[in-house]
């Protein structure tokens, strides 16, 4: 996995978060957690997950969605899934 691919996923995820949280200026990094973003509650978490599944063309497993610590984990998971 190259850095550019990672950056690209992070950029797309940021775009998704901007739409979900309706904040065009929102920036996220690998270390961002749900607590750092206002309104990142369980409902919006599902909205992010659903949008990510659709935009990246992947499906998360039941166990995967619960184990995410931060955005970096999320990006890593998407990257791993896209390789398969």
């Amino acid at each position, binding site marked *: 996995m190259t850095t550019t691919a990672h950056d690209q996923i992070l950029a797309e995820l940021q775009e998704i978060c901007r*739409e979900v949280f*309706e904040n065009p200026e929102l920036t996220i990094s690998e270390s961002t957690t749900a607590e750092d973003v206002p309104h990142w509650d369980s409902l919006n978490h*599902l*909205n992010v997950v659903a*949008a990510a599944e659709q935009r990246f063309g992947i499906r998360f*497993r039941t166990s995967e969605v619960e184990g995410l610590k931060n955005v970096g984990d999320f990006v890593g998971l998407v990257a791993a899934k896209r390789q398969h």
Partner: protein
Amino acid sequence: MIELDWLPRHPGLAAAITAARTLPTAAERLDAAIRLSGFGRDALATTRLDRLAQEALAETPPPAGWQRRRLAVLGSSTLETVIPALRVAALERRLVLEVTAAPYGQVRQAILGPASPLADAKPDFILLAMDEGAVLPPLPLAANQEEADAAVEAELNGLVTLWRAARQRFGATVIQQTILNTRLPLFGSYEAAVPAAPAALVERLNRRMAQSAATEGVLLVDLDGAAAGSGRAHWHDPVRWHQAKQVLSPAAIPLYGDLAARVIAAACGLSRKCLVLDLDNTLWGGVVGDDGIEGIVLGQGSAVGEAYLAVQRYAASLAERGVVLALCSKNDAEIVERVFKSHPEMHLKRDAIAAAAVNWADKATNLRCLAKTLDLGLDSFVFVDDNPAERDIVRRELPMVAVPELPDDVAHYAATLAAAGYFESVAFTAEDSTRSRQYTQNAQRKELLATATDMEGFLKSLDMQLDARPPANGDLARLTQLINKSNQFNLTTRRYTAEEVERAVNDPEVVVRGFRLVDKFGDNGLIAVIIARPHEQERAALVVDTWLMSCRVLGRGVEAACLCVLAHEAARRGAKALIGEYRPTPRNGMVRDHYPRLGFTPAGPSAGKGGGEASYWRLDLQHFTEPECHIRISE
């Protein structure tokens, strides 16, 4: 497969929503939300459009002429995620839905419990959206047919109790959703042969639910039917269920919202009424002007020809259902008439088509003409054309006309039209099946009028008879339908649900009359409704709460005849005066002078003023002389 395929794609919907949020006024933001809700959209875009619209609606009213209804959603699982989809799909239908949801799992408490949240919400509609976990506890697999039947009937009886209570206690129209059958098969194809198989039980409950809903006057959202059609696996995601008790997969949520909103819109009279068809490459393959009548591709013997035939069959079936058909095509009218007359494979008959605009004018102009000829609003039109450029022009010129996006292959045209649910209906009355004949007869009447030299002679020659008995039970569906769809000849534009109409009919204080007009060309069906009640202060006066009429019978003196009926009934009840009310809307300008024309005098503070507020009019019955009309009345 579970996309809103008939809606056009927007090249950059997410960015357009972001941009719309920065528009200066709430009215502009609402307008943008309404416009963008007409594009194909995923769950996230739907949620964002809902947010845009809700925030704007907090500051600005909906556009003039729109309806506003309250909906309570009760279910046994997470519902927050589907509510935005319901509201956005309603926006697409000129309807603002105010939605409340009871905490999940509290369906029975909300309807039967002592302190119900619904009492304050005063919903017009209550949607019962249970999932399989909340119904039909498992039976031993070895249970026999009788035991399985008894379990289903017990569940059904519980539902019927809820329906009746919801209706009586809150006066709401009840909508029941079929249970999404997420139970996995245990036996495979043998499933249906095992009476107590879990999936078979749900299947049977859904069937029984549909039957009982019809007899109980409950509306049905056939979620499982829709899901079975496109594959339940697309509608339900077990991952989402285990994570969040969300029955519907996110991808299916926009379509679910559309499915439920179209039933509510249908109950509010907002379904489309008229299907306008292009001809070349829509009803047959090829261009008849170039290829000649023998050269068009249609009918048996060619796969493509059969696909066009299937489009014609579907259109003909819609006409039989009461959808009005019209043609709008750039063509030579004479050649087209010859195709209808002499092409052996034409399934659609010319007399099934109520009006045709076949000429070289642009389609927007022709659609406006058709609306005038048929006395229908453009917002009741669906326009089907294979040509993307024509679709685009019509969408731009006439945004109120629904213009489905069509797939490349004509074989999918009919399915696309069916999937869009434009003509969703909550009743099928005897009149529906004769509607296209009525529209054709009306065209003949217009022809007679065009050739008649004197109006009196024309009216006399029509040999009209007006039937104005108090409505019987069988008339309620049609009465409600007319109340909810008349826009132009409608003095107050008050909308009533079937329950409210029934209550009015059974209230001895209230006068309800449905008028039926027969003439020498045929039966026009139920064409007018009057509802009048005693005035709150002046008990000896009757206030006309509702007076509406189908525009099909305009200019024939029916209003005067209706007034005679109302005046007779008022006198019979000892009333001394009639009080008429006119509430202006953008659509009902034609009845601005209805009351003064009938001899009423100004009675209200705002009487006679230009617009905006209601005006009141009075007719003292002792001064009433029966106007002359050429209609025989039977009361």
